[in-house]
């Protein structure tokens, strides 16, 4: 009896122990052996990660006016596997989406579980569609890039693709900054379909940067307007104009005509997208003579009181003839620039050895990228000094046989506005992070060289005395007897140089006799330079001289820019200068 009692007791205890052991074993299996997998499974059922896609950063002008911005819009998708009636869905959606019934029907019969029907729909269109929404269709929120200023600065800004990736211009150049990094946080799903943030909730929005440019949209507009007028009047192929702050190198406007609207970039050909101010090279022609003269003056090879024989308009170098537009006998150094004599410029340039001359050309910024921050900068083309023939040497002296971008030429001209200092132009004033902090330097992970914004340290290229002398020569160009009388502005002294260069025709294997590039580069007011401008007109048909075609555009742009920048005409000697000058920052 007692024995059987003990047996029963032991059996019960054993069973209880066994069941406990099984429970323990199972919990060991669930907690330890499969713990990680099951934890993930459980988390996927009641938790989810919300990814905050950063909104592409803004691009604004120097006054904060929006040039490019991303706005959330809706995109329509469909799951063809869930659609009940393909013909009915196609019939309902077709008129609203602007897609033909048959095309839409074909798309909806796809075997895939996700297809886009239309991306980045206009808000009004999305509202109308929301009311219909057949089964198997839905909206996804995406960002669409808008350019509120439309054509203004189109080539400089560039544009983005359908997935908000930068494709051209600054949008492409600063893609890593503007795009930003996505950021995620975990939320717990409640029974009521509400979500509760659990961990990793971002204290601030995802990291992304906006760019504030040096561009002024008012100056940009007037530059584009006068350039377009000038190109049309000259019956030219195209034109380029750059407006720069002389002292800092801040680019105030960059215009290329014909332009394009980045909001509708698909409607334009690729040729319209090029920012020809930096991407295209041209032979600067006579505007380059200021570099030749300053190099010769710096080396002490010419003097102010020296006269040069201009060979009565024709001069032979290495079997080639160099001609002047007008025949000249003897010209002083000032007159060489004022009358723009090719022969005398060649003679002056040939006094320099090729290596020394090329060294000066490089110092003025030719042959290397300007580093302005604009996309797709060209470095130009410079023949190595040891390969120069006498013809090359002579023609480079008056700006033929050298390829430079308009921005490089403006940089070089701006040296004379800054007492011989080369100012590197810049486009981006600063980057602004998501907290609103302005940054002048920024390094991204995996990036070797940091992004640097704002003005750069100037480099001395020539002595201030030489610079001042050439500047005075440049003033004479816009005065009576000079080649650019049309660039003169009433009340101001204008310093500049015209350029009329022939275009090399690769089909003919020589310079074209019908195609020219007319240009004018200068700065104003000449005695206290505030604005430096370069205007370039490609293939004008009415008249091809820089002084006739480009100089008036320069004048119009300079005049209006000074009004915007509040640069009043200099006072006469009787008045106190302080009583009238208004700072351009004021």
């Amino acid at each position, binding site marked *: 009896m007692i024995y059987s009692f003990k047996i029963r007791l032991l059996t019960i205890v054993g069973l209880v122990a066994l069941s406990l052991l099984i429970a323990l074993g199972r919990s060991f299996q669930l907690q330890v052996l499969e713990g990680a997998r099951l934890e993930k499974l459980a988390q996927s059922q009641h938790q989810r990660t919300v990814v905050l896609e950063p909104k592409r950063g803004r691009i604004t002008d120097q006054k904060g006016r929006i040039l490019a911005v991303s*706005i959330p819009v809706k995109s329509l998708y469909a799951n063809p596997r869930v659609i009940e009636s393909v013909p009915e869905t196609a019939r309902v959606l077709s008129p609203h989406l602007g897609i033909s019934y048959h095309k839409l029907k074909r798309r909806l019969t796809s075997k895939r579980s996700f297809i886009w029907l239309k991306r980045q729909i206009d808000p009004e269109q999305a509202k109308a569609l929301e009311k219909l929404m057949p089964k198997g269709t839905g909206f996804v929120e995406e960002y669409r890039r808008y350019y509120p200023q439309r054509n203004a600065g189109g080539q400089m800004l560039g544009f983005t693709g359908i997935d908000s990736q930068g494709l051209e211009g600054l949008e492409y150049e600063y893609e890593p900054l503007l795009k930003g990094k996505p950021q995620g946080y975990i939320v717990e799903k409640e029974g009521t379909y509400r979500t509760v943030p659990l961990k990793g909730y971002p204290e601030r929005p995802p990291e992304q940067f906006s760019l504030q440019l040096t561009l002024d*949209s008012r100056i940009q*507009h007037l530059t584009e307007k006068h350039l377009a007028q000038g190109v049309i009047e000259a019956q030219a192929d195209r034109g380029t104009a750059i407006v720069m702050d002389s002292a800092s190198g801040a680019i105030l406007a960059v215009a290329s005509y014909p332009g394009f609207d980045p909001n509708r970039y698909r409607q334009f050909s690729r040729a319209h997208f090029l920012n020809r101010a930096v991407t295209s090279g041209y032979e600067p022609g006579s505007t380059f003579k200021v570099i030749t003269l300053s190099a010769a003056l710096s080396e002490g090879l010419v003097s102010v009181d020296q006269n040069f024989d201009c060979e009565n308009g024709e001069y032979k170098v290495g079997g080639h003839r160099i001609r002047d537009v007008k025949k000249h006998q003897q010209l002083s150094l000032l007159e060489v620039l004022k009358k723009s004599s090719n022969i005398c410029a060649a003679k002056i340039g040939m006094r320099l050895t090729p290596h020394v001359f090329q060294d000066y050309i490089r110092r003025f910024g030719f042959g290397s990228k300007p580093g302005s921050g604009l996309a797709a900068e060209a470095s130009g083309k410079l023949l190595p000094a040891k390969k120069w023939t006498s013809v090359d040497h002579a023609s480079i002296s008056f700006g033929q046989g050298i390829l430079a971008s308009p921005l490089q030429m403006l940089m070089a001209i701006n040296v004379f506005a800054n007492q011989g200092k080369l100012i590197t132009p810049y486009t981006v004033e600063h980057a602004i992070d998501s907290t609103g902090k302005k940054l002048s330097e920024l390094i991204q992970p995996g990036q070797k060289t940091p992004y640097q914004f704002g003005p750069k340290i100037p480099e001395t290229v020539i002595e201030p005395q030489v610079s001042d002398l050439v500047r005075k020569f440049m003033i004479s160009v816009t005065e009576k007897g000079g080649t650019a009388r049309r660039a003169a502005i009433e009340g101001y002294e204008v310093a500049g140089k015209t350029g009329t260069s022939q275009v090399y025709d690769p089909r003919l294997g020589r310079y074209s006799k019908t195609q020219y590039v007319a240009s004018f580069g200068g700065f104003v007011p000449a005695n206290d330079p505030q604005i430096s401008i370069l205007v370039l007109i490609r293939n004008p048909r009415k008249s091809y001289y820089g002084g006739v075609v480009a100089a008036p555009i320069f004048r119009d742009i300079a005049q209006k820019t000074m009004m915007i920048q509040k640069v009043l*005409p200099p*006072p006469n000697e009787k008045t106190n200068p302080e009583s009238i000058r208004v700072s351009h920052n004021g």
Partner: protein
Amino acid sequence: MDRLLQKIEKELINLSSESFSSKNIPFKSYKMEQTFFPNRASSLSGQFRWKYIPAVLWDGMQSFYTMMLLGFLITMGCLFYLWQWMNYRGIATDLDLLTKQHAAQVYQIELLEVEIDYLTRPKRLERLASGLMQLQPPEHPPRFVSLNQVSEIPE
């Protein structure tokens, strides 16, 4: 029958005396320890031993008041935790809602900013000024040679 019952009773008494003898007791309380080893040297009686810890806990568990206090404390702790958790969830939900509202407001402001910049773009203003008000941009900047001239300009 009586004899059988007496036998069972005897067996049970034997069983209980065997199973609960000092040798067979599976676990001894602190009190029992003191009872079963009364002749321990007085110098060792206050000595700390690790085995006393579970023994003291066991003794504590025997006490109704201790258990009640423990139960009360655990219940209070659980209630406090629950209160804090509910509080946290409430705040998190509010925060989520506010974040969404904030995002919606930011979106509205941004739209307005873009609209302002679109409507006040220089090209449009110039077109409107010339079209509606017959205004043309000035051709020349103000031609003051000196501020002294301001007073000299005839009416």
